[in-house]
């Protein structure tokens, strides 16, 4: 038994140096030299300030922006650190609702969200992604159907013709690569940036 101690200890140390130090640092060095933008999290700068990551959703609430999906992320309660409070799109603490299909809490939340869409004047079935929380709480995308339903609200808030806003949405829809790979989607942050970049009318 004791004869195994030396190989165990020496190999743990050497393997740690190889796979725990050399490997991740070599990948880090390579990534930061060759692909610095991606290695740094695909951050988007505007006027020199970081306004977010192209890969991470943001919590849009204003009528003049397209809204992302509901988010279930939270943060420790500042008054009582043993509890959590809702904090949508908290990119420092990813997470999901984890509600099962028969969860009353899920049903209550979806019911309220569907009603608020109906109140906003949207008739008919609501796209599922518009009333469900994502797995990460940081989903950057929405479905094209969801985006198109928001065109009227955004156009009104921005005082723009709906056709003009719809054209921006249509241009922002990413389809399946080669017609097969991926899912049709719209990156909400990039869509909103494109809207902000429209020349004033």
């Amino acid at each position, binding site marked *: 038994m004791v004869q195994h101690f030396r190989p165990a200890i020496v190999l743990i140390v050497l393997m740690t140096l190889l796979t725990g130090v050399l490997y991740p640092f070599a990948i880090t060095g390579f990534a930061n030299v060759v692909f610095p933008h*991606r290695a740094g999290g695909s951050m988007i700068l505007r006027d020199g300030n970081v*306004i977010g990551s192209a890969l991470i959703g943001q919590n849009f609430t204003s009528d003049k922006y397209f809204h992302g999906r509901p988010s279930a992320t939270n943060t420790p309660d500042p008054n009582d650190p043993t509890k959590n409070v809702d904090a949508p799109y908290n990119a420092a603490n990813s997470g999901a609702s984890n509600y099962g299909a028969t969860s009353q809490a899920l049903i209550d939340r979806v019911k309220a969200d569907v009603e608020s869409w109906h109140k906003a004047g949207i008739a008919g079935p609501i796209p599922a992604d518009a*009333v469900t929380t994502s797995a990460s709480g940081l989903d950057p995308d929405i479905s094209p159907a969801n985006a198109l339903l928001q065109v009227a609200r955004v156009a009104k808030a921005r005082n723009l013709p709906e056709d003009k806003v719809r054209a921006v949405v249509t241009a922002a829809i990413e389809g399946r690569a080669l017609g097969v790979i991926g899912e049709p989607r719209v990156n909400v942050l990039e869509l909103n940036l494109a809207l902000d970049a429209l020349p004033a009318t």
Partner: protein
Amino acid sequence: MSIAGWLQIILVLALVVVAAVPLGGYIVRVLAGEHNLLSPVLAPVERGFYRAAGVDERKEHGWLAYTMAMLIFSLFHLLVLYAMQRLQNYLPLDPKGFDPVAPDLAFNTSMSFVTNTNWQNYAGETTLTHFVQMLGLTVHNFLSPAVGLAMAVALARAFIRSEARTIGNFWVDMTRATLYVMLPLAVIVAVALVVLGVPQTLLGSVEATTLEGAKQVISLGPIASQEAIKELGTNGGGFLNANSAHPFENPNAWSNMLEIWALLVIPVATIFAFGRMVGDARQGLSLLWTMAIVLIVGIVAIYAAESYGNPILTALGVDPSLGNFEGKEVRFGQAMTALFATATTGTSTGAVNAMHDSLTPLGGLVPMFNMLLGCITPGGVGSGLYGIIVVALLSVFVAGLMVGRTPEYLGKKIEAREMKFVMFALLIYAVNVLGFAAASAIAPFVVGDSGYLGNKGPHGLSEIIYAFASTNGNNGSAFAGLNGNNLWFNTTLAFAMFLGRFGYVVPVLALAGSLAAKKKVAPSAGTFPTTGPHFVGLLLGVIIILYLLQYFPALALGPVVEHFLMLNGKSF
């Protein structure tokens, strides 16, 4: 379900097979110590490691010495990871200034990584420093699958040797598996992930000012390097809490395909390697077909169940065309979520690109059943091969009983001694899962109103069964509504992981010793063939009967009853 969805599923599975055939041959050559493509670079490193460690690469171990070496190595490495977590505030690479990890959580996490489970009771971005992630978790992500591969090859050797006293040298097998198999593949996949947008930086986080003027703190880190080995080593412990659903771990459809490919390729290659080692590719193919059938039935079931949607939400006015969408990401869609969920639980990976807790009841049944099988379709790195061989031995034994002959597998007679080891290994699984799940289900502090369950009704029971199926099968995925970070679950889940790995492999290595010592006999007219559709059918039959007998009552009370309650609009 859509044609594009099916095409994506078929494409990924085809790419896995295309790569696994040559990789299988490479694994055989590497673990036999033959010259290979990477020898010019890695052979000097390998020799240097042996010299420093005092290992004589020509000296082989009997099964007991092999087992002791494996256990001591694992124990020491467990202690290293525990110490790192407890001392992380004194160690470098701590950009967020974290406190030490609590003792029960550190114990759970150490056990989780040394057993190749990677169950996460911690949230990476709010708990662990970069030091622990890189020098602790990433290293375990390399070595725990390498240990699995070593044990699988040791068992395979037992079938090729005749009247042999040794089954290989643990240190040599583990070192070669790490250097030649895990490391080069990890480098390739990590670079590819960076190209596809996965971050790789030493920063802890970046603060952004959003378009609406709010502050958003975005957690970062050396994610790509860990993500690559997390999938390749069938580990599954995410750098970030949301695992492969997080846009930084899995930013787009391409990275998603790469990650599914990576988590399947080595387990599948190992089966091809087995066929080559025993000198009959058909022996490997019959095992692989068995695995593939279970896997494909699972994909169809989960894809269909999720695409149908949740009828309760449809009745509220939700469009069902996207399917059941709670806990899923837009960029993956139902097809590639179904493939990920099936592949991650058919292997012992446990990474997730959607929250399994929010799958429909029948959709959630698929990963649960995969894990109750012990993750053998196609299984973890190494553990898939020795797991399916254990079931194959049971199958030839059952066939032998039916025709009244001494069963054989690959020229080795399977007798009472071998069957005792096989049954011991299989029974540990059942006792482990059902025992711990039953104890949790009757504990008031678990199931009570202020207990640890995230969902009420039958889904709450599913959360408990899932947790022990996952930890016992060394998978690590979760019905994550269950709050596991408490003394009860940190401890019981850690013991379930320990028994599911080491309680299982010690009888398997004893079996290897026993088989190696036997004389290899030539097949006779009375030998039951272990290739072809006949044997695949037998294996599938044994798997279904064996596991349904063990787990059907528990599954009936969990996902099955929940499915019918959902169809009737009942909620909890």
